């Protein structure tokens, strides 16, 4: 069923789907949270794959991901070594720190929200209507996740590059 769904989606206008997911302008922060949670999830997942490959090289040397001929593995290992020394890689790690922290704390917020724990009870609607699910508590948790994420990035950049040390 998932494959059918993906095929149908690809038959639809894929750019429309991506625009809807990636450009939440005119909507509330809940929609921004939805988009950021998806983007951070995908980026962190890709990072984990790259991280396993890179750690394998660091621990086991060029032969650990042996793909014949050996020269290919050797070249890949040299590329990995060069990228590990590159400050751009450290900046990338800082961004990963930001995304992982945001995804984790916002994930806790979403887990609570998904079971109605941060929301108000239903009421008698009277104009102007109050959206009972847009509570200050769950919105506060979103901003908390943003704050912690930014702090994590600053801490990571400071540790890796020392940019904030005088």
């Amino acid at each position, binding site marked *: 069923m998932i494959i059918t769904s993906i095929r149908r989606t690809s038959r639809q206008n894929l750019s429309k789907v991506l625009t809807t997911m990636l450009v939440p302008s005119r909507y509330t922060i809940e*929609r921004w949270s939805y988009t950021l949670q998806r983007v951070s999830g995908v980026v962190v997942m890709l990072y984990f794959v790259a991280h396993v490959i890179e750690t394998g090289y660091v621990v086991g040397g060029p032969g650990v991901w042996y793909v014949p001929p050996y020269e290919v593995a050797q070249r890949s290992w040299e590329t990995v070594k060069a990228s590990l020394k590159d400050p751009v890689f450290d900046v990338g790690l800082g961004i990963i720190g930001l995304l992982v922290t945001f995804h984790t704390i916002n994930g806790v917020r979403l887990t609570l929200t998904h079971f109605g724990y941060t929301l108000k009870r239903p009421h008698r609607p*009277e104009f102007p209507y109050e959206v009972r699910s847009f509570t200050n508590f769950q919105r506060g948790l979103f901003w908390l996740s943003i704050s912690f994420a930014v702090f994590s990035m600053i801490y990571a950049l400071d540790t890796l590059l020392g940019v904030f040390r005088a």
Partner: protein
Amino acid sequence: MRNEIILKVYRFDPTSGKPPTYKRYSVPITERETVLDALLYVKEHQDATLSLRFSCRMAVCGSCGMLIDGLPRLACYTQISELDTDEIEVRPMSNYPIVRDLVVDMSGFFEKHRSVMPWLIRRDVREQNQPTKQYLQSDEQLLEYLQFSYCIKCGLCYAACPVVTAMDEFLGPQALAQLYRYIRDSRDEGATERLKSAGEFNGVWRCHFAGSCSQVCPKGVDPALAIQLLRRRTLFMK
């Protein structure tokens, strides 16, 4: 206050084989005029071929849903002055097949609504046929579902939902909110059947709380709240 605005209207006839276009109309406006008033002015005085759906003109029938300045809204409920712009873009609602211009095919939306059995299910058939008593409810019992029963089936929530955009099998905010409305009704005895469809692959678990449905709802129904409470009910039975 403006005396005139430009309406940038999406025009598309799927039977013509031509791609969609936007057409601009200059419309004179007065105070407290709505987008629907402006569209009807265009239809009456400038372009009779413009297709749109409307009926009650007072946000009760839910017919005139469209994307106004990028957000799903009822045309009869949207004052031109509140948009505070010289040019208003009007498009058909997202997530629906287009019939023509601003008219969309809502049959899939109503099919999903019907699939959650939006009526009271009772076991006492004899009492239903020959009623002898009233089904009394306390204020607390009423408030459990009253908010969700205000739904006018306008489909704005469905047009705003990013999950429906990505996956059209998803039941959608309207149907799930109605499902919750009926299982919370103390007179209903069909919770088991309803919760079965809520717990399916395309049901309550696909919602990711983007909250757009609740933002655009013109009647304060708050489908996002209903769906989160339904999820709790599905998992914990409370």
